[in-house]
C-alpha cells in the first residue's frame, strides 16, 4: 500500500482546512499557503508522471486501497465499497494536467480576486481534491462521490466571484450537471446490485460481457451524465453562461479540467466498461461530436464577447474529443486523449489572457479593442502563440491531437470526419478574426493607448503552459507512450466486443450493425 495518491489527493483539502482557520485579514498568508500547497501537489504530480510506466516500477505503487462500507448486493456477500485510488494510463494525463494547472490558476488570482480571498482559496483547493479524486477513483461509488462533490466548489466560485448574471449561471450549471449525474446514480445502483462489486476493473471484466440490451441502457445513463459535463451538443447551453460569468480562474479550471471529467468518464466507463454499447452507439456519438465541432465554431463566430467566444470554442474543441474517442480506432482514441490535454492547456491559456486584458480594460467586447498589439506587444505575442496552438498549427500541440482525431475518425466514418475537418477551417476563421479585431488595426480608442503590458508574474504563469504547448506539439510521444499500454487494453476489449456482436449478428437473421463492422 502506498500513500502517494492519498497525499496527492488530500493535500489540497488539508491546505483548505488550514486556510479556513487563518485570521480574516491575512490575505497574503492565505494566497501563499494556497500557492505552496498547489506547488507541492504539482511537484508530486510531475514526479508521478515521470516515474509512471518506467521499467521496474511496481504497479501497486499507484494504488491506495482500503475497505470503506458495504451495500446490499444480489449475492450472498454484500457489495464491498472500497476507498480505492489508482493511477493508470487513462487517468495519468488528466491527473498531471490538474496538478500542473492549479498553481498557475492560483497565481493568476493575484490579479482578479480581491474580495473574500480566504474563501476563494478554500474553494479552489477543495475543487482540486474533488477533481483529482474523480480521476483517481477506481471504485464506482467513490468516483460518484468525487464527481458530485466537485460541483460544489465551482458553484461557490461562480456564485460569489462571478460577473453580473452569476447567480443564474451558477444554478443553471449545478442543476444541469446534477440531473445527468442522478440518472448515472440509478445505473450505478443497478450495477452494484447485479454485479456485487464496485471495483472499476472488476466491473470492466464483468460488464463487457453483459448482454447488449443491458449495456445500452447503462451506456445511455452514463453518457447522459458525461455528455452534459463535456458538454455534448444538445446539452451545451449551460457552458457559455457558466464560462462567461465565472471569474478568470474559475473559467480556467472549468475549461482546463472540469470538462475533462466528462470525456474521461466517456473513456473509462462508456468505452472501456461497456464496449459493446460503445460500438453500437458510436455512430450517434460521432455525429454529435462532429456536429458539435461545427455548431460550436459557428456559435463562437457569432460572439462579440471574447470570453463567450472562447467558451463556445470549447464546445467545438470538445466535439473533436468525442469524435476521436468514438471513432474507437487506436488513432482516434489516442488523439482524443491528447486533445483533452491540449484543450486544457490552450483554452486555459486563452482564458488567462482574456482575464489579463479584462483586468486592465474592464471590457471583453471585441469592439472595444483594436491595435492592442502596439500597446501590449508581449501580451500580443502570447496571444498569437496560443491562438495558433488552438487552431492547430503544425509544431504546436493542437495539430497533433486534431490530426490523430481526424485520421482516426476517417477510418471509422469518412462523413463525420469531413464534417469535423470543416470545423478546423471555421476554428481558424473565428479565432484569427478575433485576433485581428483585438490586436491589430489602428489603435484608435483612447482607452487602449494607456494599457500596460503584462508583467513578470503574468509572464511567469503563462510560460510553463507555452512550454507545454511546444513540447506536446514537437514530441507528443513523451505523453502518448505512457498511456499506450492501458489504451491497448481498451482496444482488446473493443475487439472482443466486435467479435461478440458479429457472432450474434450471424446467429440471428437480422444483422445488428453491419455498417459498423465494414468500416474497420
Amino acid at each position, binding site marked *: 500500500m502506498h500513500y502517494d495518491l492519498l497525499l496527492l489527493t488530500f493535500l489540497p483539502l488539508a491546505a483548505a482546512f488550514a486556510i479556513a482557520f487563518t485570521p480574516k485579514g491575512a490575505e497574503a498568508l492565505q494566497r501563499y499557503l494556497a500557492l505552496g500547497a498547489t506547488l507541492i501537489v504539482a511537484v508530486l504530480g510531475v514526479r508521478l508522471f515521470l516515474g509512471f510506466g518506467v521499467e521496474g516500477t511496481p504497479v501497486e505503487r499507484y494504488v491506495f486501497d482500503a475497505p470503506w462500507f458495504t451495500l446490499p448486493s444480489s449475492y450472498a456477500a454484500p457489495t464491498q465499497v472500497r476507498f480505492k485510488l489508482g493511477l493508470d494510463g487513462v487517468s495519468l494525463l488528466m491527473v498531471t494536467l490538474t496538478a500542473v494547472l492549479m498553481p498557475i490558476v492560483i497565481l493568476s488570482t493575484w490579479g482578479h480576486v480581491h474580495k473574500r480571498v480566504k474563501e476563494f482559496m478554500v474553494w479552489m483547493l477543495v475543487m482540486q481534491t474533488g477533481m483529482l479524486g474523480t480521476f483517481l477513483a477506481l471504485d464506482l461509488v467513490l468516483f460518484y462521490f468525487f464527481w458530485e462533490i466537485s460541483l460544489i466548489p465551482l458553484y461557490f466560485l461562480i456564485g460569489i466571484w462571478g460577473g453580473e448574471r452569476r447567480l443564474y449561471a451558477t444554478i443553471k450549471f449545478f442543476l444541469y450537471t446534477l440531473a445527468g449525474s442522478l440518472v448515472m446514480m*440509478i445505473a450505478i445502483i443497478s450495477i452494484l446490485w447485479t454485479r456485487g462489486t464496485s471495483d472499476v476493473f472488476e466491473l470492466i471484466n464483468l460488464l463487457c460481457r453483459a448482454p447488449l440490451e443491458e449495456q445500452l441502457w447503462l451506456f445511455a445513463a452514463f453518457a447522459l451524465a458525461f455528455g452534459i459535463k463535456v458538454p455534448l451538443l444538445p446539452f451545451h447551453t449551460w457552458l457559455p453562461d457558466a464560462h462567461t460569468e465565472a471569474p478568470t480562474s474559475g473559467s480556467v479550471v472549468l475549461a482546463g479540467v472540469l470538462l475533462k471529467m466528462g470525456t474521461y468518464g466517456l473513456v473509462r466507463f462508456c468505452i472501456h466498461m461497456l464496449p459493446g454499447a460503445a460500438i453500437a452507439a458510436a455512430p450517434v456519438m460521432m455525429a454529435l461530436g462532429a456536429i458539435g465541432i461545427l455548431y460550436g465554431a459557428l456559435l463562437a463566430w457569432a460572439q462579440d464577447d471574447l470570453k463567450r467566444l472562447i467558451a463556445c470554442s470549447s464546445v467545438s474543441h470538445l466535439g473533436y474529443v468525442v469524435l476521436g474517442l468514438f471513432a474507437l480506432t487506436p488513432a482516434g482514441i489516442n488523439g482524443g486523449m491528447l486533445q483533452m490535454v491540449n484543450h486544457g492547456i490552450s483554452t486555459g491559456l486563452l482564458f488567462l489572457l482574456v482575464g489579463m486584458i479584462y483586468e486592465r480594460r474592464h471590457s471583453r467586447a471585441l469592439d472595444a479593442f483594436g491595435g492592442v498589439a502596439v500597446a501590449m506587444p508581449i501580451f500580443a505575442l502570447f496571444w498569437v502563440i496560443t491562438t495558433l496552438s488552438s487552431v492547430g498549427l503544425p509544431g504546436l500541440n493542437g495539430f497533433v491531437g486534431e490530426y490523430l482525431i481526424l485520421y482516426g475518425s476517417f477510418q471509422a466514418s469518412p462523413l463525420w470526419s469531413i464534417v469535423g475537418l470543416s470545423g478546423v477551417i471555421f476554428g481558424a476563421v473565428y479565432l484569427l478574426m478575433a485576433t485581428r479585431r483585438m490586436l491589430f488595426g489602428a489603435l484608435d480608442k483612447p482607452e487602449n493607448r494607456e494599457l500596460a503590458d503584462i508583467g513578470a508574474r503574468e509572464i511567469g504563469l503563462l510560460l510553463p503552459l507555452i512550454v507545454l504547448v511546444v513540447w506536446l506539439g514537437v514530441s507528443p510521444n513523451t505523453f502518448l507512450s505512457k498511456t499506450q499500454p492501458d489504451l491497448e487494453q481498451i482496444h482488446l476489449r473493443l475487439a472482443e466486443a466486435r467479435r461478440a456482436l458479429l457472432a450474434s449478428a450471424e446467429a440471428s437473421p437480422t444483422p445488428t450493425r453491419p455498417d459498423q463492422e465494414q468500416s474497420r
Partner: protein
Amino acid sequence: MKLSVLHSLFDSAALGALAPLMALGIGALLVLLAGLTPLSKAARGVLVAATLIVAAALHGRILLAEQVPGVVLDGVFVADRATAMWGLIFIAGVAVTWLFSRNYYVEDASHQNEHDVLLIATAVGMSMMAGARDLIVFFIGLELLSIPLYALAAFRRNRTKSVEAGLKYFLLGAFAAGFFLYGAALVYAASGTLSLDVFADPAQRARVLESPMALVGVAMLAASVFFKVSVFPFHVWVPDVYEGSPTPITGLMATGTKAAAFAFLLNALLALPTGTAAGLAAIALLTMAVGNLGALMQQDVKRMLAYSGIAHAGVVLLAIAGAVAGDPQPHGALQAALFYMAAYVATAGGAFGVLALLESDGERMTTLDGLRGLGQRRPYLAAALTVFMLSLGGIPATGGFLGKYLVFSVAVRAEMIPAAIVGVLLSVIALGYYLRVIIAMWMQAPDENSPLASTKPIAISARLASTACVALVLLMGLLPRWFLEHM
C-alpha cells in the same frame, strides 16, 4: 389474554423490551415533579438529559445485544434491532429539539418545564408506534405522540399563528385518528383480530384481503398514517402548521412524527397487497412533485422546509412502494428508511434548529432575504445550514446522499427503474431551492431594507446541538459503515 399479559410483564424479555419506554415515562414524571421544587433550570435540564441518555443507552443495549427480546407481551409489541434503532432516532430527534428549544422561548420561558415533559412523552409515543404489532398499541402510541404535539404546536399561546397551528393540527389530527379507529374496526370485523400477525401468514393474509371490508379498513388505516407522514393528498395541513408552530417543535414534527409513522408502515408492510405497489409509487412521485414544486415557490425558509419535508416523505414512500412490489433484498426497505430518516433527523432537525436561532422569539427572520449575507455575519451558523441544505439535497459526503442512494436502490431492485428515474429528476428540482438558501447566505449582500437575522449570542446547548447535527450528517456521509451494519 389479559392474564398472560400480566404474567409476561414479569418476564425478563418483556422488561428488557419495555425498559427504554419505562425510563422515558419515569423520567417525564420526575421532570414534572421537579417543576414543583425550587430546582434551577440547569438542574432540571440535567434531569431531562439524564432521562434521554438512559433511554438511549437502553435502546443501545438491545441494539448491540446477542439476543434481542423479540416479540413480547403476547405478540402486541416487538423489540428488535430495528425498533431499537428507531428508538435511538426518536431520542435523537427529541434531544435536538430540546437543546434548540432551551433558549428559544422568551414570553413562555416560564413553562419550559411542561414543555420538556411533553417532549419526553412524544418519545414514548414514537417508540410505541415503532414497536407496535397490534393496531390498538399503535393507536395508543400515536395519541401519546400527537396529543403532546398539539399542545406543543400551540405552545406560544400569545401568538395567533401558534394557536392557529395547534388548532389546525388538532382538528385534522382528530379526524385522522377517527379514520384510524374506523379502519381498525373494519379490519377487526373482517379478520377477528387487531394483530398484524394475520398478515404474516400468507394463507390467512390472502383470506383477509379477499374481503372488501378489510380492504376498505386497510385503506382507511393507510390514509390515517399517510396523514401523519404528510403524503399527497393528505399533506395540505403541513405548511400552515409547520409555519405557525415554534420552530424547534416544527423540527420534531417534520422528523420524529414522520419517522415513527414510517416505522409502523414498514412493520405493517405485508398488509399492503402487492397490487398497490404501482399506486404507492405514483403517490410517492406525486408527493415529491407537490412538495418540491411547492417549496420552489416559497420565500419563507420555514415554509420552504415544510414543503421539502413533504417531498422527503415521498422519497421514503418510494422505498415502501419498492418493498411492496417485491424487493429481493429482505430488509432493504427497512434499512433504507432507517438510514434516510436517521440522516433526516440530524439534517432537518439541525436546519429547523438553526432557523430557530435566527429568530428572536417569534419575530420571523427566516425569509430568504433575511438570510442574505449570513455567511459574513455568522459564518458558523451559515456553514452549518449549508451542510444541512446539501444533505437535504442528497449531495455526497453527507448522510442525505447515502439515504437517497439506499431508497432509490430499493426501487431499482424492485425493477421500478422508470419511477426511480422520475424520482431522481424530481430531486433535481429540490436542489433548485436548497441552493437558493446557500446563495442568499453566501452570494448576496445583506439587504438594507429587510430585517437582519437575530444577533443574540448562541447558547451552549444550541451550539452543542448544531455541532452534533453537522457531525452526524458528515459522519453518515463519509464513514457510514457502522450505521449500515446496524440498520
